[in-house]
């Protein structure tokens, strides 16, 4: 059903400005009702294509390093490169303009068009031109602007803002495009296939290309030393716009500059592979305008070619000064972070996006170009980290969104956002709801002291209403139960907390980190890990419980997370000194050690220990696999799958951050080696993402995200039930909520098949 038929559903335009939270929530509802199925289909298709294309690049990781280094170098030398580019463009015979603001950029372009007597402009897709509101400025002068990228053409007809940075009409299904064209162009043509729709648009636009007085394009990369533009596209509309009319205007952000043509190399391969999953798109123009060949349109005397390069600052130079957010400027607009994001796949950029920029990277861009309050949609970043390994310039997008979260909090309490996220006062804007979720450790500590009472409260309807009102905890969610005894207490009772000297078995010494989620919540995962490791002869002890900072960081309480990180490292230091490996059950906690602590512990003794911590900390199941391998123990003999009372068929869902750290595959390998018949989920994230799915505002979205996962389980079970296995606590909760069945941790599952006698006999 088209969005504009039902009055109860807001139009995309009306929710483009999300500076107010109610617009964000309305946009999510609209997207779930109208746009979700097309967005899901299209983004997931891009996502699969990218995995295939990037895996075909043999030196993919090296190329990313090169690309990142070029961007770092270029941005560090920006003033110098801008001067060089200005000289190059004028040497080539073109005009250069550096526009400080969006308004100035639009005004300049409008003025150039007016002076040249332009009546008709053909325009290629350019997010920068969307950002500066160029079409409005040209309209005001009576100049007709025709969007010629087919997606932008659709949006122009529909009067909507882009919902994706490379596929702006990704929220349109073929059926909805047919309906839109039939309605808008009053045609009886069937327009029932992609070919028919394309032919229809081609016919209308070819005429415009041949008549246009000016072509306006963006630019993907610009070489300072030669004034060369790289224009990447597939439809040939950008070639038309840059080649046919006598006047070519290119508009781009200042961050598109690289030193020279030879720096294009890595990007040419990375951009298309990361964006559409192609080795290269149909056309990549490498031109240093103005061209010399006469414009085609001219009949009789050809007017001389004219070229203007308009580089837009509009907040970018300020962004370059922002210690935390600066790296967003390296973005090459491939959209990989959008396509690999489960939330984005479910709602698209009309909900997870602003006026122009969308997805994980979009928050920082909207914040830099239109103001922090326009970055509110960045709340849809759950920090799952699936975008991180996909980014061709290695931007830590979850970190950017965490910083925005902290700053938005400060903005909301009327404070000027602090530039240093580690300053204690920087957390002061956190709402009651954020504090509640951030300090899960305190809640759990007290909850598990009085488990009967606290678990009763968790199911007591009036209490849930109160929790929802005060803290935004959705009353429909089952709350995880608090454990008593806790993992630390239980391991003491079972005397599992003491070193265990053994002559045979593994020579590894380790400590199981009692993370708050395992210690106060699902202690059976922790106990299973201890039992399995001990059986393998690993000398393993249990640490005290300490909040590692995951919960606080996820709520944007960065300063608090940093303090917790320091305490955690202090707790772990003696173990590392003692030669013990750190074993972590909860993947999101391990991700703190491997990934997030570098932002929190920049200097001091904790910072110095970070490298060691990263090298010597392991996900529990991955660790078991390592120990088996080192001691040449056959998994099928220690954990014979046939012994499991529930059978050998299972469905395994790995945790998002576990995938990012590369420790999902070892778990799958181990389960298969033990003899289990394993079907794995093919989703990026389950949608729960720690606290995200518990929040009232995001409950529906969280379950909508999980629909893919649930459908995959149902499909896998068409031939009979499978044991549900997941590594993350919140993934387990999500699966249980959707499928109504208990979910095991891989080590609980393996622990139930353990044949101690086999291990004991291994020399």
């Amino acid at each position: 059903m088209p969005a504009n038929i039902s009055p109860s559903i807001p139009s995309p335009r009306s929710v483009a400005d999300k500076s107010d939270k109610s617009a964000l929530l309305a946009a999510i509802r609209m997207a779930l009702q109208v746009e979700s199925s097309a967005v899901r289909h299209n983004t997931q298709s891009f996502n699969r294509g990218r995995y295939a294309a990037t895996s075909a690049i043999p030196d993919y990781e090296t190329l990313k390093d090169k690309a990142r280094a070029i961007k770092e170098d270029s941005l560090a030398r920006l003033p110098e490169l801008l001067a060089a580019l200005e000289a190059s463009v004028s040497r080539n015979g073109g005009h250069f303009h550096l526009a400080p603001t969006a308004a100035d950029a639009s005004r300049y372009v409008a003025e150039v068009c007016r002076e040249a007597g332009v009546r008709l402009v053909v325009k290629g897709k350019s997010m920068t031109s969307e950002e500066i509101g160029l079409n409005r400025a040209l309209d005001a002068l009576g100049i007709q602007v025709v969007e010629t990228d087919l997606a932008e053409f659709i949006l122009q007809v529909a009067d909507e803002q882009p919902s994706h940075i490379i596929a702006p009409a990704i929220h349109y299904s073929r059926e909805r495009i047919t309906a839109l064209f039939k309605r808008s162009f009053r045609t009886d043509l069937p327009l029932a296939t992609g070919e028919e729709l394309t032919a229809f648009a081609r016919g209308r636009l070819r005429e415009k290309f041949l008549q246009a007085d000016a072509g306006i394009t963006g630019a993907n990369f610009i070489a300072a030393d030669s004034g060369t533009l790289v224009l990447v596209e597939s439809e040939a509309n950008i070639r038309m716009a840059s080649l046919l009319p006598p006047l070519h205007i290119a508009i781009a952000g200042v961050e598109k500059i690289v030193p020279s043509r030879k720096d294009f190399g890595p990007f040419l391969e990375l951009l298309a592979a990361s964006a559409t999953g192609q080795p290269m798109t149909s056309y990549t123009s490498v031109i240093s305008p103005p061209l010399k060949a006469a414009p085609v349109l001219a009949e009789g005397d050809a007017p001389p070619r004219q070229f203007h390069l308009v580089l837009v600052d509009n907040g970018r130079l300020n962004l370059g000064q922002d210690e935390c957010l600066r790296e967003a400027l390296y973005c090459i607009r491939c959209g990989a972070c959008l396509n690999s994001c489960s939330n984005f796949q479910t709602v698209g950029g009309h909900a997870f996006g602003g006026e122009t920029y969308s997805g994980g990277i979009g928050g920082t861009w909207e914040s830099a170009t239109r103001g922090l309050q326009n970055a509110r949609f960045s709340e849809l970043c759950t920090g799952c980290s699936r975008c991180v390994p996909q980014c061709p310039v290695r931007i830590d997008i979850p970190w950017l969104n965490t910083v925005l979260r902290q700053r938005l909090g400060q903005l909301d309490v009327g404070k000027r956002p602090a530039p240093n996220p580690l300053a204690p006062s920087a957390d002061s804007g956190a709402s009651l709801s954020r504090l509640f979720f951030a300090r899960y450790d305190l809640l759990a500590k007290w909850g598990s002291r009085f488990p009967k009472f606290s678990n009763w409260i968790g199911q007591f309807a009036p209490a849930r209403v109160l929790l929802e009102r005060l803290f935004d905890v959705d009353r429909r969610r089952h709350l995880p139960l608090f454990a008593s005894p806790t993992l630390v207490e239980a391991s003491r009772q079972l005397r599992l907390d003491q070193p265990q000297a053994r002559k045979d078995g593994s020579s590894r010494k380790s400590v199981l980190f009692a993370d708050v989620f395992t210690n106060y919540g699902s202690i059976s995962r922790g106990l299973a890990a201890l039992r399995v490791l001990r059986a393998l002869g690993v000398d393993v002890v249990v640490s005290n419980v300490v909040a590692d900072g995951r919960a606080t960081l996820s709520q944007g309480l960065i300063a608090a997370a940093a303090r917790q990180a320091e305490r955690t490292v202090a707790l772990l230091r003696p173990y590392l000194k003692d030669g013990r490996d750190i074993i972590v059950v909860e993947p999101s906690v391990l991700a703190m050690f491997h990934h997030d602590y570098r932002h929190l512990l920049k200097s001091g003794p904790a910072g110095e220990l970070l490298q060691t911590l990263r090298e010597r900390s392991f996900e529990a199941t991955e660790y078991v696999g390592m120990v088996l391998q080192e001691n040449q123990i056959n998994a099928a003999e220690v954990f014979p799958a046939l012994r499991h009372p529930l059978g050998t068929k299972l469905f395994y869902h790995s945790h998002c951050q576990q995938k990012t750290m590369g420790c999902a595959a070892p778990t799958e390998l181990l389960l298969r080696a033990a003899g289990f018949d394993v079907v794995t989920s093919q989703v990026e994230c389950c949608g729960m993402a720690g606290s995200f799915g518990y929040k009232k505002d995001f409950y529906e979205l969280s379950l909508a995200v999980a629909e893919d996962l649930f459908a995959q389980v149902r499909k896998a079970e068409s031939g009979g039930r499978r044991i549900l296995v997941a590594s993350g606590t919140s993934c387990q909760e999500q699966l249980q909520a959707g499928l109504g069945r208990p979910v095991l941790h891989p080590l609980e599952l393996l622990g139930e098949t353990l044949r101690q006698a086999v291990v004991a006999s291994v020399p």
Partner: protein
Amino acid sequence: MLAPLFERFSRAAIDAGATVEQIPRSSTALASAIRRVTGEARRIAFANAIDLPSDPFEECRRAPNVVTARSRIELSSLDAGITEAFAGIARTGSVCVSVDHGEAGTISLLARMHIAVLASETIIERPADLFRPDCLGAKGLHRNFVFITGPSATADMGPLVRGVHGPHRLHLIVLA
């Protein structure tokens, strides 16, 4: 071991939706290859070659369906446009066509089918190689060119559609 450059170039170009053939290096072979591909085409046009030795299209130009007038309407209604390509890229199946010499830019853009002719020794490994100073010998890199990888295409109208504003078909002729 990697397959020879031509084979990988050819496979990648076909994956991108192009068709590829390799022919002996003679103007007669080229003329008959072009006749074969253009078939019933009523209006075809050639862009002058500057990188290939001599004039490879000399024989082809005598065909009756070759148009030489160059009004915008005529250019826009070409059935086939034939240009040279100064390089091929094995990894991506792309060809590089200069867009600022004569009419190669517009002919390769406005015709329904684009036929690009390249010499086999100009096929290189990857796009980045092109920017090395020694890549194409003393001639150096063209100042204005385009990497062409398959025909024009879009996924904006739902399924992948080949043939949008630019050529609907791309045929590559490699001179052995």
